[in-house]
């Protein structure tokens, strides 16, 4: 049991490439921290540096208060589960699990007792004398976990331990990993590229991109308050929809319609000096079938019409996809990288597909010209140049505040439904202007 502190840790490979840049993270004792990011973001390198399998170019790594930069893996008291499991093929399950203890010169009866205890936890008793080659994928994965837990280490490091399991087993094992960590209460650092795994498992999630931590926060915080475009696009499935927007006379014009911005956001955008173009981020669940939105709520967003290209029902929810012209285009290195990671780098056509999650009660069908509503309150506004989330700036309390004071609405939508609670909204809907949808700017 120990806390792990990464203090300005940097990794530069001999060929000069920077794999991890100035990584700072304090991992508390017993905390479950996830490193997540697309491939090549430096998350595995970071884990290998914690394990001692890669040298640290600069910075300091402390485990349990001790600086371990120059300690070899065996002196760090950490256990690691590898993506390929890395079981020793010439040893039985029992020998695999007891190998570390044997190297530590533990008496054989103690080894046996510990191995059997771990095997009981992981349901491996019947397989103790088999070789890894005669085990299924899930069993091998459990042996790899068992090899880690018999040692009772200061910390567990896991390098995509579930990525070789099939989908169903992965979900099941994910729960087991979570339960195991709670039960053992050992510090755990877990690397994955799967954001679902990251959000469901971690106490805290560090999102990495090109060797730099973008944001390290609780899963909810990452989802609700992403600090930049990359985090916003990476976390969430289906991903956040991004639209280009232009600020004109206090209005935010997008291909869905016009939104009115609060003074604070407007000032923030002006201060950022990026001009009038911004990127607007809306999550799929911010959309709804307009027919299902109560009149009270309509004013918090805008209504627009869209031709539904694809309709997918999941039973509990309905996903619909429609296309919007990109307008001037959402150009951002971060978005391009996200697209590449998702394998859709070359699918950029004239329009952007927007995913919307609707209530299962909707009567909208495929090919229909439907009326949709989008909630403007959780909208994010990003600076296209830096990717920074402008809607978070200077905002200390939660996500974008939700007020749409009636006196700020411009068009002639009935204002009777205005909420009584007053407040300064960051984003307001401009009802009536989004229908029919104007071409972006």
């Amino acid at each position, binding site marked *: 049991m120990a806390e792990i502190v990464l203090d300005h840790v940097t990794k530069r490979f001999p060929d000069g490439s920077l794999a991890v840049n100035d990584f700072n993270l304090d991992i508390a004792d017993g905390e479950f921290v996830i490193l997540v990011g697309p491939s090549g973001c430096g998350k595995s390198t970071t884990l290998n540096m914690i394990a001692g399998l890669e040298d640290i170019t600069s910075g300091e790594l402390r485990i349990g208060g001790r600086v371990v930069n120059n300690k*070899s893996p065996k002196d760090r008291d950490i*256990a690691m589960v590898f993506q390929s499991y890395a079981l020793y093929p010439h040893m039985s399950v029992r020998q695999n699990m007891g190998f570390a203890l044997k190297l*530590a010169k533990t008496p054989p009866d103690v080894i046996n007792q510990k191995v059997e205890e771990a095997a009981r936890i992981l349901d491996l008793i019947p397989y103790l004398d088999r070789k890894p080659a005669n085990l299924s994928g899930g069993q*091998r994965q459990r042996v790899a976990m068992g090899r880690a837990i018999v040692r009772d280490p200061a910390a567990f490091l896991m390098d995509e331990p579930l990525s070789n399991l099939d989908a169903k087993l992965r979900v099941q094992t994910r729960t087991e990993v979570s339960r195991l960590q709670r039960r053992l209460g050992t510090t755990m650092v877990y690397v994955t590229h799967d954001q679902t795994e990251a959000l469901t498992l971690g106490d805290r999630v560090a999102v990495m991109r090109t060797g730099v931590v973008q944001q390290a926060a609780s899963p909810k915080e990452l989802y609700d308050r992403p600090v930049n475009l990359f985090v916003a696009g990476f976390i969430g499935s289906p991903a956040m929809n991004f639209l280009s927007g232009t600020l004109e006379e206090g209005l935010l014009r997008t291909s869905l319609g016009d939104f009115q911005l609060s003074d604070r956001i407007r000032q923030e955008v002006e201060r950022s000096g990026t001009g009038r173009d911004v990127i607007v981020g809306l999550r799929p669940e911010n959309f709804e079938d307009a027919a299902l939105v109560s009149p009270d709520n309509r004013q918090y967003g805008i209504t627009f019409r869209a031709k539904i290209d694809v309709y997918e029902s999941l039973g509990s929810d309905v996903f619909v996809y429609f296309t919007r012209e990109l307008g001037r285009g959402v150009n951002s290195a971060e978005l391009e990288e996200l697209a590449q990671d998702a394998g859709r780098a070359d699918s950029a056509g004239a329009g952007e597909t927007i995913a919307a999650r609707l209530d299962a009660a909707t009567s909208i069908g495929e090919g229909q010209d439907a009326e949709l509503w989008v909630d403007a309150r959780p909208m994010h506004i990003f600076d296209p140049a830096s990717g920074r989330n402008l809607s978070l700036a200077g905002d200390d309390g939660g996500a974008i505040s939700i007020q749409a004071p009636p006196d700020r609405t411009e068009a002639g939508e009935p204002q009777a439904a205005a909420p009584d609670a007053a407040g300064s909204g960051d984003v307001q809907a401009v009802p009536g202007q989004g229908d029919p949808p104007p071409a972006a700017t």
Partner: protein
Amino acid sequence: MAAVTTPRQKVGWGSANFVVIALALIPVLWMVSLSFKTPAAILDPSFIPASWTWGNYHQILSTSQFLRPLINSIGIGLIATLIAVVLASMAAYAVARLRFPGKSVLIGMALLIAIFPQIALVTPLFNIERSLGLFNTWPGLIIPYVAFGLPLGIYTLSAFFREIPWELEKAAKVDGATPFQAFIRVIAPLAAPGMVTTAILVFLACWNDFLFAISFTSTISSRTAPAAMEYFSGSSQFTVPTGPIAAAAVVITIPIIIFVLFFQRRIVAGLTSGAVKG
């Protein structure tokens, strides 16, 4: 390889195999046949001896002229093989796993030694060995055998080491192994098929060597079997000892056959299955 399906293909492959095997085996069988012929029947062209005799075997195995070189062959071959495999496995591990300055030079030198014509080295080595007192001793043969066995060993073993998932070594390190323990307990057992293969190749090279054996020895105290056969004498000055030579050749072939048959399965069996996702 595509599976043989049609009868035509079976016949085609079968006859091709038969031709190849016949070409390889007929000289060996001829040698066996000669070894069982009586001296008078040596020039008899019939393939199967008219009268069988153990005389040739009896003759070579009853004198130290062959037995002592046979022991030399076994001893020198085993020692040279052991040293070459141990050194080669360490060198090959370094070549396969580590980055170090001069790595390409090392590989280049190994290749250079492997392709160097050995006959060109006989004279200088002869002089060196004589001045060092190694001439006509076991080390006098073991050292050059190791030197020429190493490149072969490094090449084959580094190929085997490259096949072993690197994560196994990382896992061993995290489990608390020193680099040496990781090598001995995890990497080397997995590379065992490769080591056996290398050992067989190196041993064969030592066992079959004639050039160094005839050049660096002068008495049966260190002369190996292939060289000793050269010194067999017939019943008279004018008789070629064909029968005893054939018998000796059969005797020194048998260990090789046993060796290969015994280790064949280990060479083929891929021990690494199940190491990673499968």
